[in-house]
C-alpha cells in the first residue's frame, strides 16, 4: 500500500460509508412498506414487500410537488435578490473609505449566526407585537398589527426575508473578492477610452467576474434548495403547509407520518434528479 493510498483511505471509507451503504439500504426499504412502527426490525422489511408501489406513488403526491414548487419559488426570489444586494454592496466596497474594515466585519456577521438562532430571532421579530410591526407603525397612522407568521402569504415573505438577511452577506463576501480582483489598469484604460461607469461594468467587470458569479449563484442555489433550519423554526412549515419546502416535507413524513418506505423511494428519486441536474449544470458551465 502506498502512502498516498493510506492517507486517502479514511476519507474514502467515510464517503463510502455515507454514500454506498445508505444507498443500498434505502433501495431495499424503498421497495417495501416498512415503517419504524411496524414492529419488525428493518432487515426483515421484505415482509412488507410492495415492489414499485412507492415509486409509482410519487407522481400523484401533490404535497410533494407543491413543496417542490414552493422551494423553487424561494430559490427564484431569494437567490437573485441576495445576488443583486450583494453585488451592490460589493460595488460600494471596492474603493476605500473611512471605517471600511469595521463596516465589512459587521455586514458579514449574519452568515455566522447559527441559522437556528436566526430562526428564533426572526420568529421574535415577526410577532404581531414585535419590532417589525413597530417599525411599520412609524409610517402608518394606526398601529400595525400584522400577524406575519400565521398568514400563508406573509409567512412565506417573512421566511424569505430571513434567508435574504442571512445569506446576502455570503454573496457580498464572494462578489467583493471578485470585484477587487478586476485589474485597476483595465478599468482606467477603459475610462480613458471614454467608457462610462455602466459601460465599464458591462464590458470589463462582468466578463471578468463570470466564473465567480457562477460559483456564487451555484452555491446559493444549492443551499436555498436545502432551506430548512430558519424556516422550520419560524413557521414549522405552516400555517398549514404554506411554507412547507422540500426539506420540511421530508422531515415531516420522516418524523410524523413515519412512512419510511415511501421516504426512501422519494429520497432516491430526489438524489437521481439532483445528480442529473448537477451533471447538466456542470456541462453547461464547462462551455
Amino acid at each position, binding site marked *: 500500500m502506498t502512502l498516498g493510498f493510506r492517507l486517502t483511505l479514511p476519507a474514502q471509507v467515510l464517503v463510502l460509508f455515507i454514500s454506498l451503504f445508505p444507498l443500498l439500504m434505502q433501495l431495499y426499504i424503498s421497495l417495501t412498506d416498512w415503517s419504524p412502527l411496524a414492529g419488525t426490525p428493518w432487515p426483515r422489511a421484505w415482509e412488507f414487500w410492495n415492489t414499485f408501489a412507492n415509486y409509482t406513488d410519487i407522481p400523484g403526491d401533490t404535497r410533494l410537488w407543491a413543496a417542490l414548487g414552493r422551494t423553487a419559488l424561494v430559490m427564484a426570489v431569494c437567490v437573485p435578490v441576495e445576488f443583486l444586494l450583494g453585488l451592490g454592496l460589493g460595488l460600494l466596497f471596492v474603493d476605500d473609505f473611512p471605517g471600511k474594515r469595521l463596516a465589512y466585519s459587521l455586514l458579514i456577521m449574519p452568515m455566522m449566526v447559527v441559522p437556528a438562532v436566526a430562526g428564533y430571532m426572526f420568529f421574535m421579530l415577526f410577532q404581531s407585537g414585535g419590532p417589525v410591526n413597530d417599525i411599520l407603525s412609524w409610517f402608518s397612522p394606526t398601529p400595525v398589527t400584522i400577524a406575519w407568521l400565521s398568514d400563508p402569504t406573509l409567512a412565506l415573505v417573512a421566511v424569505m426575508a430571513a434567508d435574504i438577511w442571512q445569506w446576502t452577506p455570503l454573496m457580498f463576501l464572494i462578489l467583493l473578492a471578485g470585484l477587487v480582483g478586476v485589474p485597476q*489598469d*483595465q478599468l*482606467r484604460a477603459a475610462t480613458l*477610452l471614454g467608457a462610462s461607469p455602466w*459601460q465599464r461594468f458591462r464590458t470589463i467587470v462582468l466578463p471578468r467576474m463570470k466564473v465567480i458569479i457562477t460559483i456564487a449563484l451555484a452555491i446559493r442555489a444549492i443551499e436555498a434548495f436545502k432551506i430548512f433550519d430558519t424556516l422550520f423554526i419560524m413557521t414549522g412549515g405552516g400555517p398549514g403547509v404554506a411554507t412547507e419546502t422540500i426539506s420540511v416535507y421530508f422531515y415531516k413524513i420522516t418524523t410524523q407520518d413515519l412512512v419510511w418506505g415511501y421516504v426512501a423511494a422519494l429520497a432516491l428519486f430526489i438524489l437521481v434528479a439532483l445528480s442529473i441536474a448537477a451533471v447538466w449544470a456542470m456541462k453547461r458551465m464547462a462551455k
Partner: protein
Amino acid sequence: MSAIHLKSLVKRFGPFTALKTMDMEIADGEFMALLGPSGCGKSTTMNMIAGMEAPTEGRILFGDRDVTQVPMGQRGVGFVFQNYAIFTHMSVRQNLDYGLRMKGVDPGPKTAAMAELLGLTDLLDRPSAGLSVNILQRLAIGRSAIMEPAIFLLDEPLSNVDAAFRAVMRTELKALQRQFRQTMVYVTHDQLEAMTMADRIAVMDHGVLQQVGTPLEIYDRPANTFVASFIGSPAMNLIPGEIRGGAFTAPGVEIPGFAAADGPVTLGFRAEDAQVAASGEIQAPVYSMELLGDSSMATLQLGSKSFAAIKAAKDFKVEIGENLAVRAPARICHLFDAQTGQRLSGAKP
C-alpha cells in the same frame, strides 16, 4: 495635436509632497521623456496630465484649453500602461475598436486601417490573451490611436520587456511616433530610452524638475550633479576638491584653466572624454580594470574615498596599483557648487 502647459503644478498626498511646483511646456508634436528614479514624481505628473489624479495646486492646459477640472475620460489623451492593460477577455479587434464602440460610433473601416498600419491585420480576430509583448504594445498604442487623441502618454511601456527585445521595441515605438505625429509624453527610469527616443528630456528627482533640454544639452551641460550622475553610462565622474587660483585641486588631480572663484567645488568629467597619456592632469593608482568589449574601463583611486573612471582602448593593459597619467583638460570638465550641486559658470573656458 496639442501642446501641453503645466503651470505651477503641485501634488501632495497627505503630508507627503510628490511634486513640488512644476512648470513645463511641451510643444505640439514633441516627444518628451520624463526621466528619473522611482519616486521622483514622474508618474504622478503623467497621471495628472491624464486626469487619473487631481493636482493639489496649479493648472494643466492642452493648447488653450484648461483641462484641470476635466474628468479623465473626456480629456482626449491616449494612454499606454506599463503592462499595456489589454482587455484579455476580448479579441484584438474588440480591443482596437473598444473606444469607438463605447462612444456609439461605428468603427467602419477605421479598425482595419489601424490594424494595417500596425501590422495586426492577420491577428484581428485572435483572442488578445497570450500574444507576444511587442504585439501587445502595438495593440495598446493602436487602441488609443484609433481615438485620434491630441496627446499620447506612455508609462514605462518597456519596463516589462526583456533587455534583448528592448532595442527592437524602442525602434518600433519611435517609428510609430513619427507616423502619428502626436505630442507624446514618455515616462521612464531608463536614461538610454530617453536619450534614444525623446526630442527633449525632463529630468526629475524628489518631486523637483531638475532640467529640461534636448538629450545632447542634458548630456553636455548637466544642470547639477544629480543630472550629471543620472545621465550617461558610466555616470559622470564627480570629484570633490577646491579651486585655488583658477586651478582645481584634489588628491592626485591638478587641473588649471578655470575662471571660477576660489573655494570648495565638485569637478565633473565623463570617462570617455579623458585620455590615458604619458603625462596629464591626473596622476593616480589604478583601482580596477574592466574589459567592456569595444573598449576598457580603468578606475583610478583619488585619495581615500574618491574614484574616477577612464575609458581606454580595448587592448590597453595596466597593473592594478600602478600609477596612471590621464589627460583631463579644463575644457572637458564641469564645475558644480560643493554644497548645492548646481552647475557653476566658468566651468568651460
